[in-house]
């Protein structure tokens, strides 16, 4: 009797059916692709940013007082900012990559732990991107009204 009730409850619950599996597989595939592209972009930004940043800063500081605003930035600070931005982007897209990787594993091995880890990674990805979007919006508002 108890088993029957349990079966009935499980029938009423949300299921990871074929349609859901297909959607999650597709979401995971695309999110992994986007994350890998962003990692490559981060690498390129880091390499070219550091090279161009140090070259630009030294050139501007050599040009003299009319470019003093840029000249005040030491190459170290500029490179530090570039590394910080790349690190933030890298962390954000690590969570998206983790979602893509774990959801694929979870669906293949039917592992609840991987499934929940994947969903948690996706949630963290959306939390961070939302916070960054809010900060960007506030910055735009500040610029508009200043």
């Amino acid at each position: 009797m108890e088993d029957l009730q349990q079966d009935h409850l499980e029938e009423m619950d949300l299921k990871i059916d074929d349609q859901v599996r297909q959607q999650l597989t597709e979401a995971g595939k695309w999110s992994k692709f986007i994350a890998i592209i962003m990692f490559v972009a981060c690498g390129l930004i880091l390499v070219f940013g550091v090279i161009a940043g140090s070259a630009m800063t030294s050139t501007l500081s050599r040009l003299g007082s009319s470019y003093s605003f840029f000249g005040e930035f030491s190459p170290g600070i500029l490179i530090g900012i570039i590394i910080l931005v790349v690190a933030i982007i890298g962390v954000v897209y690590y969570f998206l990559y983790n979602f893509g990787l774990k959801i694929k594993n979870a669906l293949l091995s039917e592992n609840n732990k991987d499934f929940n880890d994947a969903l948690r990674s996706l949630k963290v990805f959306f939390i961070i991107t939302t916070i960054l979007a809010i900060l960007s919006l506030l910055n735009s508002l500040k610029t508009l009204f200043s």
Partner: protein
Amino acid sequence: MENTNENSIFNFNNVDEEAKSNLSGIAQWTNINAIVGFVSAGLSLITTVVGLGRLGSFGSSSNAVGAILGLIITLAISLLLNITLIAAAQNIKKGIEQTDQGHFALGLNKLATYFKILGIITIVVIALLLLVILAAGLLGGRGTY
């Protein structure tokens, strides 16, 4: 025992409480993300209109056309992404709250569509960047002879 639960096919087929909690969180944050996206789109519209007003006083029409074109493309992409994201959020939320498999599947379908659109935009941006690099290389090469 715990290992059996984690790997059981029968348990996996049902969305457990932890997964529901994570999915609710995803729905909540995607909803906020989409709303912020709509506000940002509106703000960029206002900023461009204000900028065009200033440009108009200088009489530069080619810059204005470029700005309008850029604005239309940005707004179209932004609206498409945020409408898809908000649909995903609402359907996943409804699916969990009402234990409705149809809404749940539709929500995940919209989430997959969101990532697909983002992926396609990424491919387009890469293609455009490669074209620009190729064009710059060709023009640069021609300039040296």
